[in-house]
């Protein structure tokens, strides 16, 4: 018995030793990525949060930080009409984009899954815009939307709809909508690819079984395909929402938030505040970042709860 206990103890000690070595090796391999993530993500996040409570000035070449508590946050919510407008624009953008990109992306995915010819061509063509950078898009669409020599107005005039030609990015009533169209055109291919992967993973036996039961066309899509890719649609919706709530570069290149703040987003306002307000008080800009970070997190959690289905289908 004692011998058996000794043997078990020896085995256990040896195994624990192996585990320690193995654990050390794992930690060693994880360390660079963890360090990277900590330095480039966690530390700036925490530091930004800290800056939110400060008023920053430079006095005789030295940075002076003054603790102001919640004053920045109070101003953001109760005395900053620019933030309210920017937040409204960002949320409008997110909602409108979700309403456009998700149905169109899903539809394209379903069409592609049923298409019998030129599948690769259409998949590539519809995905291509995703590869373009927002800077390029901003320049490109600024020219397309130009009032005088823009391609869109030229097309409208060519087909006898010249009365609809207007400076799309130059008036408050159309500027935001024009940019929403740009991002929808840009990202719908991504949603399509996500949903296409999900649709492709549905076994064909389910379709066959449904057909046997008399389901055709639209009923197949609505009752079989869509429920089975619901979680993918949820993921895509959350990604679209987060992406549009953060948007900055397209606006910066195309309109800089104008005209009259009609396309100002929280992203552009933060940069304006940090670098172009003629003050060095980055505390306020940090507070704006903090508020919006929390807002995006809350929206993500809410959307996740609303859209994600806990059901697991086994097939």
């Amino acid at each position, binding site marked *: 018995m004692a011998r058996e206990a000794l043997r078990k103890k020896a085995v256990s000690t040896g195994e624990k030793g192996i585990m320690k070595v193995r654990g050390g090796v794992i930690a060693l391999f994880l360390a660079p990525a963890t360090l990277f993530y900590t330095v480039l993500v966690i530390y700036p996040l925490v530091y930004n949060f800290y800056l939110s409570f400060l008023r920053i000035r430079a006095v005789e070449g030295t940075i002076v930080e003054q603790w102001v508590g919640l004053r920045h946050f109070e101003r953001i919510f109760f005395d900053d009409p620019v933030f309210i407008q920017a937040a409204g624009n960002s949320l409008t953008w997110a909602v409108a984009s979700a309403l456009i990109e998700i149905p169109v992306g899903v539809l394209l995915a379903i069409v592609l899954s049923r298409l019998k010819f030129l599948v690769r061509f259409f998949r590539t063509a519809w995905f291509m815009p995703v590869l373009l950078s927002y800077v390029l898009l901003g320049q490109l669409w600024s020219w397309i939307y130009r009032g005088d020599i823009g391609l869109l107005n030229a097309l409208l005039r060519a087909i006898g709809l010249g009365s609809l030609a207007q400076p799309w*990015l130059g008036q408050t009533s159309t500027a935001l909508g024009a940019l929403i169209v740009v991002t929808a055109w840009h990202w719908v291919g991504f949603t399509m690819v996500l949903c296409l992967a999900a649709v492709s993973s549905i076994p064909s036996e389910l379709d066959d079984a449904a057909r046997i039961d008399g389901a055709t066309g639209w009923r197949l899509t609505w009752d079989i395909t869509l429920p089975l890719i619901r979680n993918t649609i949820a993921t895509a919706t959350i990604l679209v929402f987060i992406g549009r709530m953060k948007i900055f570069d397209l606006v910066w290149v195309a309109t800089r938030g104008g005209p009259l703040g009609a396309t100002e987003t929280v992203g552009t306002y933060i940069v304006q505040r940090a670098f172009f307000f003629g003050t060095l008080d980055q505390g306020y800009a940090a507070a704006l970042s903090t508020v919006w970070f929390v807002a995006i997190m809350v929206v993500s959690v809410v959307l996740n709860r609303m859209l994600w289905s806990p059901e697991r289908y086994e097939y």
Partner: protein
Amino acid sequence: MSTPKNPTGDLGGLTRRESLRLLGTGAMATLGGGVLALHDPAPAATPVPQQTAAATAAPKVVGPASITFWSMWASEPGKRKFVDDTIAAYQTAHPGIKITVTWYEKAPLNQALTTAFMAGSGAPDMFYEDVITYNQFIDSGWMADLKGKLDENQFPLEGFEVSMRRPGKVYGVPLEGIISTVWYNAKIFRDMGITVPDSRQMTQKEFETVMDQVKAKGLIPLAGGAADTAWGGFHGSSFIMRVAGKDKFSGLLDKRTTWSDPDVVQGLRLAKSWFEKGYFNDTIQTLKATEAYQLFFQRKTAMIYVGSFLLSNATNPPDKGGAPTDFEFGVMMFPSVDGGKGNRLIGNRTGGMYSVYSKSKYIDICADFLNFMGRPEGAVAWMQYTNVPTWLKAPAGAKVHPMLTEQLKLLETYERQNPELTNRLFNNEGAAFNKWVGSGMFDKSVTVEQMVKELTDARRRDA
């Protein structure tokens, strides 16, 4: 032989608890190490070196030195040539001193400078500065006071100090002068029988009659580009300056004048009226200022109201955005307005200047370089390379572009005043001015009353 039973279960020999513990330890260790490594304890306050009494002789320059220099004008070949040639000549005369220049456009330069200054490292020894940020940089103590180090025979420092509103201090070399005039196409005017008075200034009625005539001919009377809200703001502030006069106009900057002052409101109304009468291009809301130049060079518009830097663009080769070689320029004053207290004012301000970092090790060498740049030959070279005025003193009779000569004559006739409010108003008030005057001036839905209300509210929020 049987496979040894994994004694602890999943994850390659580690339980989930052990794996998480390991990851957490690793993360805490790296976080702690990272924080310790990166945390910069609050730097001890470094007092700005006190300036000694002014010395009349140029300071002695001691090398070796490697000086970093950040400049705007990345896409302006004339100004780049001036700076490059000056550096080359200085380095030849001062072996052991090397000056490395990095070229930027304006917005990225200001961001880079702000970031470097606030970080306390990586800032250049010398840098371009202008009205957008020099006030905050001076107030923050990042610009060296060069009083006593610059050759006061060569730089008109009194006027410059007034321009920068820092009596007794000199924070840079005023290299580029900007004179704001109305540029017109002399051939269009001649063909239409329009003559400019000898005083080079029309009344508002005469000017609007000219614009009506031009409009009737199917041309755009006045080109503008309000996508750069700076230009839109300049248009608004020029009218305010005309109506309100020098003192009240300056009062907007130090808050002595309210936005609801009747003269200010009248100035905004007159500015808005030109838009409402259709005197500008339809694309004004989306066009950048430099794109508006093209309307002028392509003869689609008879006039454009901008600073003297237009000539620098105009003299580029046509395939690089310049005017056709047979283009006939003319300049005149912004028109006078009825009862205006500022009708004799000509818009004049410092454009680009070069400054020295207050914490540079080479302040004296930089000042010596700037003296070298500002010598009479430098002034002439600047005007000949760039066709832009300079505050540097050029010898009489220097051969420069005839249009530059015409502008300089106007400076001798009229009283100088910085016409800008854009970039001299800061924080919420500055942003509101750019938005509601710079952009809102050219939006039909925005009224002057709304502009005044928004500007007043913005000033309250800054208080």
